[in-house]
């Protein structure tokens, strides 16, 4: 294991707090905007309700340079492989926000074309209900996510490791990981 596991506990907790603080206040976002929620995302990022004041300022339009994936709007089956590929292209640590009910659970489009929630494709850290959610709700979700990032131990950010930890703790049986097509 790395150096951080050989240091005494007191140093790593302070270090973890510092790393958590740094991570939560400098989120580079990748807005994966599809539908109407994109208008509210634009409104949240603009001058009146500003998410830049929370550190989440710059949209990095490349998944390789981003840590926060905002999935804004409906994802349908035609777009699902692209979303999975973009999630896989992001480097860890990475977090995902499902913005709007269509991304959280499929919204009121319960038909052949829509994925009923992107958590069926990629793991999600925060869900924002609303159709579309008001900008205040979006800021609330961002702050809750920041709390979560602050509290995360810094080697547990990978999805597989999180799942393994929950299996070890006996909370739930491990779900199957991604099945890559042959």
């Amino acid at each position, binding site marked *: 294991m790395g150096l951080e596991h050989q240091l005494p506990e007191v140093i790593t907790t302070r270090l973890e707090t510092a790393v958590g603080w740094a991570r939560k206040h400098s989120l580079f976002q990748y807005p*994966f*905007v*599809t*539908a*109407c929620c*994109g*208008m*509210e995302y*634009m*409104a949240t990022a*603009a*001058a*009146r309700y500003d998410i830049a004041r929370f550190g989440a300022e710059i*949209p990095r*339009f490349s998944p390789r340079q981003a840590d926060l994936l905002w999935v804004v*709007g*409906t994802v*349908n089956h*035609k*777009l699902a492989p*692209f*979303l999975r590929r*973009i999630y896989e292209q992001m480097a860890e640590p990475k977090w995902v926000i499902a913005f709007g009910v269509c991304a959280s659970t499929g919204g*009121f*489009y319960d*038909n*052949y*074309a*829509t994925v009923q929630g992107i958590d069926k494709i990629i793991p999600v850290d925060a869900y924002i209900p609303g*159709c*579309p959610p*008001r900008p205040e709700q979006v800021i609330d979700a961002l702050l809750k996510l920041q709390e979560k990032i602050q509290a995360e131990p810094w080697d547990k950010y990978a999805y597989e490791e999180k799942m393994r930890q929950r299996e070890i703790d006996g909370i739930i049986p491990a779900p199957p990981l991604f099945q890559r097509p042959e």
Partner: protein
Amino acid sequence: MAHNITDSFDSYDPIDQDINNEPMILQMGPSHPATHGTVRFTLTLEGEKVLKCETEVGYLHRGFEKECEAATWTQVFPYTDRLNYVSPLLNNFGYALAVEKLLGIEVPDRCNWIRTLMGEISRLSDHLTSIGAGALELNAMTAFLYAIEGRELVWDLIEQVTGARLTVSYGRVGGLKDDLPEGFAENWKYVRARLIEIHAYTNKLLTRNRVFVDRMAGTGVISPEMAISYGYTGPMLRSTGVDYDVRKDHPYFKYGEVDFDVPVGSSGDNFDRYLVRMEELVQSIRIIDQCLERMKPGPINTDDPRVMLPNKERVYNSIEGMIAHFKIVFEGLQVPPGEVYSYTEAGNGELGFYIVSNGTGKPWKIHVRSPSLIMMGGVHKLFEGGLLSDIIPTFDTVNMIGGECDK
């Protein structure tokens, strides 16, 4: 000139033969910042020139038409909101007009005035978004912030009237959800002053800006015959010089009684489309002023008992009222069988609804003639022959809205 600089290139022939000059295929994929919403272009490039462009849409197909076949006539209104989601009121009223034609009912005067007014407010929001996002893509961030501030003010007004900022479901078959609130006229005066200021600022920042004009003028040119053949309408068609506006040619609601001009461009390029949209902002403000002056108090819903819910005193105190309310809500409005094609002017062009009814409370078929899908069919004509960097302003002024395009 006698001595041309390219004469000296003859000595470089052996090197040229090693250079691989096949065209390059580039995917401008579905998740791209410059494609509003999700469209995929497969571009064949030679250097920076676009030789061929294949468009692929459908990345936001949500099954609007299939959902509407399973919902009652009134339950379709939220789905129509999400079609052109920057101007949802225009879609609502277009659909309400189509169903009212099938039913053969007339709405009261005040309802038509309010529909005109709220439709124009929604059109303001549409044009501000298009201009703002267009400026953002060309790196004019300040103009974007001004336009979004203008849009927030318009959304404040919409929120006072309908209760929601973006997806409103304000129209109903046979009327509206609610009347205008009391302080609306004063709020409109304040917003109007601010909007005119924002229009002036954006004008100052962009219209005579050398960089902006260089990128927009002369790019994305289309001729009027090509535009009509490819089915373009709205600001795209008017920028080529064809004077077709559904509000003037086939007036509906109260457009026949208000006084406004329709801006028509001449050269069919991006800069003309930008100017058409800026001028339509001013004309919309003019229409709204006239509507507020000429509107008289009165009922806003028709009193046809087949369509209108009875008022709450009757619903709770008489059995007939309760049964009428129950039947209208659960079974849906009983629309007589038939079909109709009704069209209105949405933000992007002519939005048509072809509705088929089989006599029950649920529609048999609703087809949306969405201007954005039709435009995407012809957009390769705008890109081919131009540079890669001209795709960005062209696509912005086309203003394809994903929800409308993919239905």
